[in-house]
């Protein structure tokens, strides 16, 4: 496997990220699937590095992939870039047929623009009322993704078919956070009884080597989430019961 050679083609790779960001995990999974080696640089978002601010002046966010010093920003843009800059290195994240590519892009965009905002409301909810409303709003989005899995996979293990694809990475990278939120909120967003297809897919995705190697420890994510909530609760001056 031409790992070093692949990374060398066009220059060295560096990834600016934070250890628990699901958007950073997306990129790490993709680079791992392609067997590309890179230097990982942990950012402190409370005190962003000059390199980050220079590399992503528009958004100032992670992930940023630097290839031969040139920055690529926005996780889905980076994923498509990885496919195109290293063609033939590992299985492609996107299929070759134009209609199938449009379908994959549609569901990746759905994850970003429809599912994640709904999940974020659950993630940020502090009271029982907010939780209930957010959960109710998020379930139809999970239903849509469960149907999408059936359509896209056509009985194969992943949205991408036999191999992990764009949609698998886009959604799967958030699983560790979905589980943390479920635990704290007492909800079951990817209910195995209700969504057996999606639940089984989640297990398969998390078992993939390139994924296992980069997904952060569930306990640490849970701890970080509890820390965030404690801060939000203190800020809101909330008196409601919460974990």
């Amino acid at each position: 496997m031409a790992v070093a050679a692949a990374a060398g083609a066009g220059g060295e790779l560096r990834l600016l990220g934070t250890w628990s960001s699901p958007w950073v995990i997306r990129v790490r999974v993709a680079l791992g699937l392609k067997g590309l080696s890179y230097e990982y640089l942990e950012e402190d978002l409370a005190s962003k590095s000059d390199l980050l601010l220079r590399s992503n002046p528009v958004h100032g966010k992670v992930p940023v992939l630097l290839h031969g010093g040139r920055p690529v920003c926005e996780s889905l843009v980076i994923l498509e870039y990885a496919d195109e800059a290293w063609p033939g290195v590992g299985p492609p994240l996107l299929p070759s047929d134009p209609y199938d590519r449009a379908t994959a892009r549609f569901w990746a965009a759905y994850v970003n623009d429809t599912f994640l905002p709904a999940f974020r409301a659950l993630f940020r909810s502090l009271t029982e009322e907010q939780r209930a409303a957010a959960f109710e709003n998020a379930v139809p989005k999970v239903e849509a993704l469960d149907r999408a899995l059936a359509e896209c996979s056509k009985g194969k293990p992943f949205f991408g078919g036999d191999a992990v694809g764009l949609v698998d990475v886009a959604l799967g990278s958030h699983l560790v956070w979905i589980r943390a939120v479920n635990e704290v909120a007492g909800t079951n967003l990817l209910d195995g009884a209700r969504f057996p297809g999606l639940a089984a897919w989640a297990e398969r995705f998390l078992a993939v080597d390139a994924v296992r190697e980069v997904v952060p420890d569930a306990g640490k994510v849970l701890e970080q989430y509890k820390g965030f909530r404690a801060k939000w609760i203190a800020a809101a001056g909330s008196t409601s019961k919460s974990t």
Partner: protein
Amino acid sequence: MAGEKKGLQLLDFWVSPFGQRCRIALSEKGLPYEYLEQDLGNKSELLLRSNPVHKKIPVLLHDGRPVCESLIIVQYIDEAFPGKDGKPALLPADPYARAQARFWADYVDKKLYDCGTRLWKLKGEAQQQARKEMLEILRTLDGALGDGKFFGGEAFGFADVAIAPFTAWFLTYERHGEFSVEEECPRLVAWAKRCGERESVAKNLTPPEKVYEFICGMKKRFGIE
């Protein structure tokens, strides 16, 4: 299959800048298509069947199969009809240039339309905030363009297709924000003029005064002064 007809059909709404992205792309590629104006207050069976997830325009039907989301449609047009009649690709060949084009198209999607909506819908402090953000967005685009002819450099491409329809909205933003895009972002205005010289853009953009009229109509409906 959602529809039954062979060839290309576009489900669209006359003033939609998102729909216009698709019209520009189809025109750039010299692709004939059937334009089907949609009544968004009373959505057609065809639209609801073709885009059950979002129920929105634009939707491109290719031999009855639907493609949804404007930027996804533009990429589909580029990939399904490569080098048709010798027409150039909308996305450049170089992977890094493609990433830059996708980044700027995504930036406009994330920022421009929503900020514009807040600018014409809201009043007082909230409108001032929207005005501030709009100026920042336009200046960022002006900076990204730099001294380039188009966002992609020498050739009109994907990012230009993504952003050009919003130039018809500059007048509406100016009147609600009380600023001049030309004064704040001269390069962006020069770029808008260059785009407007292309047939694909000229024949598919709504005249700015008509966009303004449309927004005034929307405001009346929402009971906004």
